[in-house]
């Protein structure tokens, strides 16, 4: 089957959301690795930062779910 | 008197024919199915074969055709019996080389007469 070269606005947005879903773990990995690059601020503050990133990932994943959950069709 | 090989799967009919013929002095051997009938004919070497058309294993028409193809049995008198009584059966029997063809039911005198006719004394 031929795939269309350009998409309408709706499908275009959905496709970018899928891209976001694919990128999310890599973004998370970078954020998780950040403490290694900082001069040490102590376990407590580092821990707080980690929890914040963690919670952020959960939130973004939950939002993405709203758009992606119902799409179990073929990969486009 | 001669030797009759009766190939018939209905035991009661076979019994009736055997009774009629042996009372007239014929020696009657009964073979109850189509499969192996040809070998039975070869073994018994009768003077005449009475052959039922519908037999389990192999039909009477098949047996007859094969008998006619075998030089030993090509001239053996064969009296064929059928209960279906259809025109087609008679044609098929004649094509296969039957000597006489009779439909069931038959009268006792008739079958005796046919056997006597087919086996010259």
């Amino acid at each position: 089957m031929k795939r269309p070269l350009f998409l309408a606005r709706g499908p275009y947005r959905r496709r970018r959301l899928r891209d976001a879903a694919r990128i999310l773990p890599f973004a998370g990995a970078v954020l998780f690795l950040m403490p290694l690059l900082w001069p040490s601020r102590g376990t407590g503050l580092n821990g707080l930062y980690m929890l914040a990133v963690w919670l952020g990932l959960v939130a973004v994943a939950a939002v993405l779910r709203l758009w992606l959950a119902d799409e179990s069709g073929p990969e486009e | 008197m001669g030797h009759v090989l009766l190939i018939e799967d209905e035991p009661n009919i076979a019994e009736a024919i055997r009774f009629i013929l042996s009372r007239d002095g014929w020696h009657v051997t009964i073979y109850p199915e189509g499969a192996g009938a040809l070998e039975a004919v070869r073994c018994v070497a009768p003077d005449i074969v009475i052959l039922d058309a519908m037999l389990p294993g192999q039909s009477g028409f098949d047996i007859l055709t094969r008998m006619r193809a075998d030089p030993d049995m090509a001239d053996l008198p064969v009296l064929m019996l059928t209960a279906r009584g259809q025109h087609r059966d008679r044609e098929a029997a004649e094509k296969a080389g039957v000597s006489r063809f009779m439909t069931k039911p038959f009268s006792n005198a008739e079958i005796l007469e046919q056997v006597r006719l087919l086996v010259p004394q």
Partner: protein
Amino acid sequence: MPFNLLVLSCVSYVIFLFLVAFIAERRAAAGKVRWLRSPLVYTLSLSIYCTAWTFYGAVGSAAASGLEFMTIYMGPTLVFVGWWGLLRKLVRIGRQQRVTSIADLISSRYGKSNLLGVAVTLISVVAATPYIALQLQSVVLSFGVFASEDREGTALWVAIGLALFTVLFGTRNLDANERHTGVVTAIAVEAVVKLVAALAVGVFVVWGIAGGPADILGRIQAADRPEWALEPARWAGLTFASAAAVICLPRMFQVLVVENSDEKHLATAGWAFPLYLLGMSVFVIPIAVVGLEMLPDGNPDLFVLTIPLEAGRGDLAMLAFLGGFSSATSMVIVAAIALATMLSNHIVMPIWLGLMRPAVSGDVRRVVLLSRRLSIAGVLALGYAYFRLSGGGAALASIGLISFVGVAQVLPALVGGLFWRGATRIGAAMGLALGTAVWIYTLFLPSFGAISPDGFGIDWLRPHALFGTEGMDPLLHALFWSLLLNIAGFCVGSILSFPSPMERLQGAAFVGVFDTAPGPSGWSGGAPEAEDLLVMAQRILGEETALTLFLTEARAQGRAGYLPDPTPAFLERLERRLAGAVGAATAHAMIFQVAGRAAVTVADLMAVADEAAQIMEYSARLESQRQELTRTAAALRDANAKLTRLAEQKDAFLGQISHELRTPMTSILAFSEILMGDVAPEDARRQAGIIHAEAIRLTRLLDDLLDLSVLESGQVQLHISDVRLRAVLDRALAAAEHVRPRHDLTVFRDSGAEALVLRTDPDRLAQVFINLIANARKYCDAAEPQLRIVVRAQDAGVTVDFIDNGRGIPRPAQATIFEKFARLDESGQAGTGLGLAICREVMANLGGTIAYLPGQGGAAFRVWLPL
């Protein structure tokens, strides 16, 4: 706390879990699965990732090395928030290919190679055994905290109890696609207990002992130690290892893929599972810090228990104890199920199959269940033995990570197989072999001192400094080298080898799982007997499931009866169903045994691929039209054949009737003529007897013909009433006694099922039953003839099966036995040849059906009546 009280509370908790599992199974059986198969339960079941090692050990690890424990949760978090990319594909493939375990997935992807299945199974067992031992140890340790006296044998009883639970709820059904609802529900409940316990202890520590979040943050900053500083290499390496483990651990694969009942649940788990992990770890550092302040000499691994005890909160400690107990038990249960499935499908079954060649004989179902049960017991016995031999203690503590690195060896073959069509069996085998060898040499054996650190005197072979790479952390060193060599072997092997056709088929199916076009089929060429396939399928799937499957398939093909044409597409579907029960490699081998031919050749593959490409050219609409046309053409062809047959049959039917009437008439006439003359008295008596018998035969024939013509015209008068099925069967059996018995017939019945009340014409139904029973009595040729009458409610009706143990009806005759004058026994003496034709008409008049049931080992008829 006295020891007995502790045991009592444990036992009550376990009984509670039994009840939960039992009720869940009951509800699932009743079809009430809305709650049981919700995304929430799915997410909670994933929590078996958090074992006792993390429940207790996270605090211990935090006390020793600060934030590093978080890496164990970061990996899974990253994998799950990225579910759209990897996990979705994994779950889709798992469902489509009916994968039963991670070993099965690898085996299936690489051309259903059992060698790879065995390899993954062995790695998994080796990696999981110490892990199970670790769980047993944690239970023993936590007992020790409470119990005033020390008892031997705690671990043994725990192991036995867990084996019992797992066998009871883990091997109820065979098909992996029928999920273990009971186990999963119990696991979900345990997940809640774990989380509540961890949070409760944490809240108590932060607000009960410390003065709230600000105070605790201050304490943490104050307690900072140099060894808590982040180590970049371990930080990244452990995150990677845990990410790999959450996919590759057999128990995770089990709940993630095999127990998944709806792909959409993954979307929920994508954020909810990381949230769960967050909940489990948010209070770890505070607990560790407070613990170190309060109990400087205590074992940090047990702070979760000892802090509440020290603060006089026995109830909280008890809750924490149950949380730890839950963590240990749920991990062991699921790990045992997953490992047992792998052991049974990839090691026990292939051996049994090779020894017995039982594709069409023997009850495979029972053997599979038995081998799974034994495997479960074996896995737990192994874990227990390891616990005893290692003597517990420090050697076990590091086992969690060692295990992670071990199972990570499967990752290259798994991910490579999912995304790279060029990955081959040889490559996967090389990668697995190299990686596992390095893991065993550099990490597993040294972990219990089974190998000398000098590498047999060869400098570059030292287990902790392979190729001279000194100064690395041993764990990272092993992770680095094993995966590097694993990936290298995988790539080189794949690039240099040429895959078999089956591998290429499976590779295309896995990598392109989201493409709509159905993949080319793995079966082509000649055809096995559908009946043999049915017999085999029944042995594995069970009778009803197999019959339903074949019936549906036959209907889809537009055929009457239970035997579809063994088309490649059907073989493919059948194989997948079987794979759900016994694994892909075994299912393939079993079908192969029946089909008795090579699956595919390269030429077949190319032909099928061309065909598939051509079909893709058509639009979906054209395609469906074409199918419609094919179906119509087939229906027309059928109708035409039927008409021709009918015309011929009418002729033949007249001939038949003539024959059937004239035959008795001939005897009657001949003997009555004889009797008119002079006959000896004893002859006369016998001949009169014959006349009598033939007259009866003639009458019966006329009765049957009359009955049949009334039935066929639809003018039949039915006397409908409510009647118990049992009464009709009783009557039929009594009446069939009078049929001249050729054999004694032993009848097996199921009086419970026969209590059904039917609304039908009892006389007519009894007529059908009498016919079937009499047929069994007359024709069953077994040495000890038996008749089973099986009653089942199904399809808005009831089926009554009459199954004897004779030779059955040969396949060619099965199509015609319901025709008039169709006789198997040609002697013509037994009956009028109208019995089954009448049965068919009676059933049609009663609104039901009667059909021959192939593949039951003897002659079998199924009567179906609407309820």
